[in-house]
């Protein structure tokens, strides 16, 4: 039997299409697998958001909640990373604490991937990296997802024309329906991202969180950068922590919570729970609008010639030079802030201490690749 050339061509093209589809599917769904996090022996409990809102079980919105309980009565510090997963220093700082932090008193509740669904895809048409590779001291490589800003459209689609914040009716652009930090305090029976927000709200309530910090990153040209935002109850602690940091040579500003802008973690969680609300921002060139090549090198090294020029022209709020803003420096700032907040909280509320032990200092963190502070996968293999 003779096969016509056109039929052969059709078969080849179809085969290539199927192959492309399979490879694309595999590539895309690789991001659906949770990142390896290797908790230290000081982590006393690992829960899931679905323990607080069972509806999330089996969804990509379910996420790990790591609890480090010193066993000594004190305050409880809540920490959110990965509210916007493409703000990588946030979840990296949270993961380092899960893997290294030791407490002398009080309790720490850490959710490294607050919006886990947003970890499962990269930003469409922004060419952001799917994965970040971080070598550890023993030469092994830890692989983390690059993440996106909002919930995966696979979990919620299509976006409405206009997003309306349920509790207040505030109107925002439709895509904000998938932005966790516009959906607080959420609803147990709302749309996908509202349910994630509600589960986090429940964590704060059930675990008795006293002070909650949401770790973010921002465009270098965004005015709220290298700063901590605080709700009114947290403003004294934030002011003192910022002073402490400035004594250590870490310049950081303090900003007030915008009362009329609703749905933000540090605005709503502080209103609906007993937790003081705080939010921190470091500069990440991979998010900015004038960045150059956007790959994991930009995320890790934070060097971008266009931002150097923009700084020279006075167009950035975070100053860029040839050294850039590497991940180690951004993580160092977040961890130094957490440390300072715990100190000033303990100073202000001595009856509810939250005291850390063996925390690396800012100087140790800033000049050391973050992989040094991560556990090696060999530790898991050896178990």
């Amino acid at each position, binding site marked *: 039997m003779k096969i016509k050339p056109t039929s052969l061509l059709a078969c080849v093209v179809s085969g290539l299409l199927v192959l492309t589809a399979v490879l694309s599917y595999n590539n895309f769904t690789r991001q659906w697998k949770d990142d390896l996090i290797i908790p230290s022996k000081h982590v006393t409990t690992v829960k899931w958001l679905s323990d607080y809102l069972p509806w999330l079980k089996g969804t990509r919105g379910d996420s790990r909640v790591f609890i480090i309980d010193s066993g000594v009565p004190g305050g409880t510090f809540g920490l959110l990373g990965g509210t916007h997963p493409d703000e990588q220093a946030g979840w990296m700082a949270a993961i380092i604490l899960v893997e290294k932090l030791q407490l002398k008193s009080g309790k720490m509740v850490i959710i490294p991937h607050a919006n886990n669904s947003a970890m499962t895809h990269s930003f469409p048409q922004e060419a952001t990296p799917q994965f970040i590779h971080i070598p550890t001291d023993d030469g092994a490589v830890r692989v983390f997802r690059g993440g996106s800003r909002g919930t995966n459209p696979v979990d919620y689609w299509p976006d409405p024309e206009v997003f309306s914040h349920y509790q207040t009716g505030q109107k925002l652009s439709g895509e904000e329906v998938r932005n966790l930090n516009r959906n607080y305090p959420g609803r147990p029976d709302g749309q996908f991202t509202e349910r994630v927000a509600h589960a986090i709200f429940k964590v704060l309530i059930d675990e008795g969180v006293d002070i909650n910090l949401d770790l973010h990153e921002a465009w270098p040209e965004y*005015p*709220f950068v290298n700063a901590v935002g605080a709700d009114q109850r947290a403003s004294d602690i934030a002011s003192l922590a*910022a002073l402490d940091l400035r004594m250590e040579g870490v310049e950081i*500003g*303090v*900003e007030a919570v915008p009362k*009329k802008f609703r749905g933000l973690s540090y605005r709503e969680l502080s209103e609906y729970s007993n937790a003081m609300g705080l939010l921190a921002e470091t500069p990440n060139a991979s998010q900015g609008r004038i960045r150059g090549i956007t790959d994991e090198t930009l995320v890790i090294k934070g060097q971008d010639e266009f931002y150097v020029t923009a700084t020279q022209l006075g167009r950035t709020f975070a100053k860029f030079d040839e050294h850039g803003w590497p991940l180690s420096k951004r993580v160092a700032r977040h961890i130094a802030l957490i440390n300072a907040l715990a100190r000033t909280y303990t100073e202000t509320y001595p009856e509810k201490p939250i005291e850390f032990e063996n925390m690396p200092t800012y100087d140790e963190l800033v000049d050391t690749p973050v992989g040094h502070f991560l556990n090696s996968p060999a530790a898991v293999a050896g178990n």
Partner: protein
Amino acid sequence: MKRTQSWIAKISAVVVAVFGLAMTTANAVEPVKAEFPVLVTSFGQAPDGNTITVLAKRIGAQLTYDTLATPEKVKEFKTVIVSIGVSLKGFGAAGVNLDTEIARAADILKVAKDDNIKVIGFHIGGEGRRDQMSDKIIETYAGDFDTLVVYKDGNQDGIFTKIAQEKNIPFIELEKLPQVSEVLKQILK
């Protein structure tokens, strides 16, 4: 014992001298002393006024903090500490803008002048509070204060030094931000 006391006195003198150098005064005019009650407010809604209030509390001084103080409220006080610096988040939080802040600042300074209320300006936000909008407030009103206290990081171009010299205003420049506490002790005692 006398020898120990003598050494303590010498060491104290050195510390005071070193500290005095670290907090540069740009002119020979003595900074004003605050009279109580003292109000802390903001020109520009940066929350640095809260830092001042918290630090004052640490040294035992109770100040009233009101970021949106009205001219009527200012009349209730003998001294006003103004934290200078614009925060867009602060504008959002307070529901104000640069124009309304500039108008409020003008009204406050007028009331303070009419009622002989001392006004002490603090700029402790560093370079981060030297954007165009902050500069507009600084250029417009920094010359109207009875004393200026400025963190060096925000005075790299010498704008405050120049204003203080031109207007003969007592001026303190802080090398390190935590020196705010020392200045507050000096002003509030």
